């Protein structure tokens, strides 16, 4: 049995756990704790180690989705999680510009740990105050060749689209490397 891994990262309360829950075929293995810090009381519970979801591809292949802890005090987990990943998804809450700078930092750090293909999921696009994906691209200084995809993490089709776009980006990276090897 071959197992593959994708990492779902992003700032605190961006919707990472929901993203995995929406697509995983098993109940997400959550490692959540009650929030104690006042400034982080946007939600009651947060991920302290990682969330864990699964998609069975066929009898010989399984894809695991690992969600990172959103709070920076647990970022010692990130390097371990990034080990051997196919690629990663940065989930950003499009309605909270106060988290954009942190999203950029997380993205840079993850990419430096493991420079694999990634996409940005502009989450909560169903909310009235959501920034448009192209505005997020400018705000987060995302290069033009990286996809910023509108997303609603509670909607399965939306989550599927983000996962597929990451897989297409992986194929594109393979194409580029093969083209370079020929030259």
């Amino acid at each position: 049995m071959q197992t593959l891994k994708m990492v779902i990262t992003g700032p605190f309360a961006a919707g990472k756990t929901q993203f995995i829950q929406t697509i995983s075929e098993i109940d997400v293995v959550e490692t959540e704790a009650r929030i104690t810090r006042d400034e982080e009381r946007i939600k009651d519970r947060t991920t302290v180690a990682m969330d864990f979801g699964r998609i069975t591809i066929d009898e010989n292949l399984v894809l695991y989705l690992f969600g990172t802890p959103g709070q920076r005090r647990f970022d010692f987990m990130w390097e371990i999680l990034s080990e051997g990943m196919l690629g990663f998804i940065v989930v950003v809450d499009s309605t909270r510009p106060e988290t954009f700078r942190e999203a950029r930092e997380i993205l840079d750090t993850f990419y430096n740990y493991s420079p694999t293909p990634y996409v940005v999921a502009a989450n909560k696009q169903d909310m009235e105050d959501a920034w448009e994906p192209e505005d997020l691209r400018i705000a987060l200084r995302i290069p033009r060749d990286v996809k910023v995809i509108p997303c609603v993490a509670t909607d399965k089709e939306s989550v599927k689209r983000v996962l597929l776009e990451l897989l297409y980006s992986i194929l594109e990276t393979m194409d580029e490397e093969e083209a370079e090897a020929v030259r």
Partner: protein
Amino acid sequence: MALKGNLRDFNTTQLFNLINLARKTGLLTIETRDARARLCFKEGKLIYAGLDGQDDRLVTILLKAGKITEEQARTIRARSDIKNDKELGLLLINAGYVSQEDIVQSVREHTLETVYQLFNWTEGTFRFEPNVLPIEGRITVPIDLENVIMEGSRRLKESARLEEELPNLDMALKFTDRPDARMRTINLTVEEWRVVSFINPRNTIRQIAQYNNMSDFQIRRIVYGLLQAGLVELVPPEGVEKKPPPGAPPGAPPKPRRPAVKRSIIQRLIDRIREL
């Protein structure tokens, strides 16, 4: 969709960068505890800026600019048949009091003077409403935002903020591919030109600072301005590709590398996820 936020998280320079690059049209309202500014943009250019409580009628602008006298201003204000600034502007030009150039220059200076005040606002909220332009009857002068952004960056005094925005001086710079990012239309200081002359993917920002004998704060302020004005972008320095030690601040990003799996496996993942 309205664009809302707080200046602490997304400052005026960054807002202008977004409006400029996205070529936005609409109304930007910035509010602090005791002031409110309203700015209008058309296709990424600033066309109007006004502060609550500020008299920004054309007659006041021309008087302030010394283009008309106090007496002329009084006469104009006393006339009730002039409906708006556009009508007044035409009347004044036809009467030979001012030229069209006088009006354009005065309105432009007034707009810039107003907008530069906003760079000192560090607390407050903003809201951008697309395609809303409450400027009927006003004379508008389109102003490129690149120069406004550069001037705003020159006024930055907080080194901590700059470090947050530009943490890594070991990155290099290259000019953007935007065809309308024309350096010749930008007004740069001598120091800024010196930095521009060294921009090349082979030179890191730190090296450019060393060549020009600049402090980290000075180089960050200039590069931040050039970045926000959309004139340059950060790139990994050519010939450098290394992974930083765990816990180190992010370094120059290497090129993405393919995962160690076969293409057919990725295709199987795609097929399965499509089916879900």
